[in-house]
């Protein structure tokens, strides 16, 4: 297999209405992977600069909200010479179609990547249905 070279993708800014707007500065939409297996849904979100303690996850009805707040990376005395990307918080919302077991949700931040595990409610797990020949 040929080595895959990464391409630069510009950070997508969240629409002002979507963000909470309590802090100045831009708000970006994190890139996500959403995976599903029989036990639950896993969301992986790239939120560089966000510490674990600055992540808010909110699940209300079936609306999932992810907010990541960054700590300022640049010191106050630093003078900008060259800028290709903006610093900003992260915000993304999803509507979940599955019933999630709210008490078993786990979230972990590792190297700027959020791993959010949303286990399905036990009774929602798929059951094999036997088809009998008539």
């Amino acid at each position, binding site marked *: 297999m040929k080595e895959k070279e*990464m391409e630069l993708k510009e950070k997508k800014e969240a629409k002002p209405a979507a963000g909470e707007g309590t802090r100045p500065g831009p708000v970006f939409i994190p890139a996500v992977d959403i995976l*599903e297996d029989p036990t639950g*849904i896993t969301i992986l979100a*790239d939120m560089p600069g966000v510490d674990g303690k600055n992540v808010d996850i909110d699940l209300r009805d079936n609306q999932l909200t992810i907010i990541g707040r960054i700590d300022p990376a640049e010191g106050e005395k630093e003078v900008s010479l060259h800028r290709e990307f903006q610093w900003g918080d992260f915000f993304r919302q999803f509507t979940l179609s599955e019933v999630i077991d709210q008490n078993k949700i786990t979230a972990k931040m590792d190297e*700027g990547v959020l791993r959010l595990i949303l286990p399905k409610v036990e009774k929602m797990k798929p059951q094999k249905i036997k088809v009998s020949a008539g």
Partner: protein
Amino acid sequence: MAIVRWQPGESSEFDRLRQEMDRLTNLLSWGTEPFFSRVYPALNMTEEGDNFLVRAELPGVKAEDLDISVVEGRLVIRGERKIGAEGKDTNYHRKEREAGFFRRTITLPTKVAADKVSAVMRNGILTVTLPKSEETKPRRIAVKSA
């Protein structure tokens, strides 16, 4: 339109336009590099006292998968972003995150002390600290009275 003799130094419309063009040219170029290089990862460069600081957003990239070097006045950042395989019962609803190799270079404004360059990964942000070389630092020259 009236034809007016151009007099340098006088704040004419032409001077203002030329200044604006100079400003734009400076904004769009950093040495020989374009403002946006379109190469992953995007970089920011700042200056603080005797150091240049270069930062990149590299979520999920491990320190051991990065290779950073200073070659002839340029900073070279190479590495690989790996995304681990999930179980075989897993199906994807969305896949926006990418994995792969990257190699990026950026020209430094002045000479740096290559042996004192350090790099840190924290929460998916790479910070490279490049101390300016001794010879580029301003030197105060004492004036003796004869």
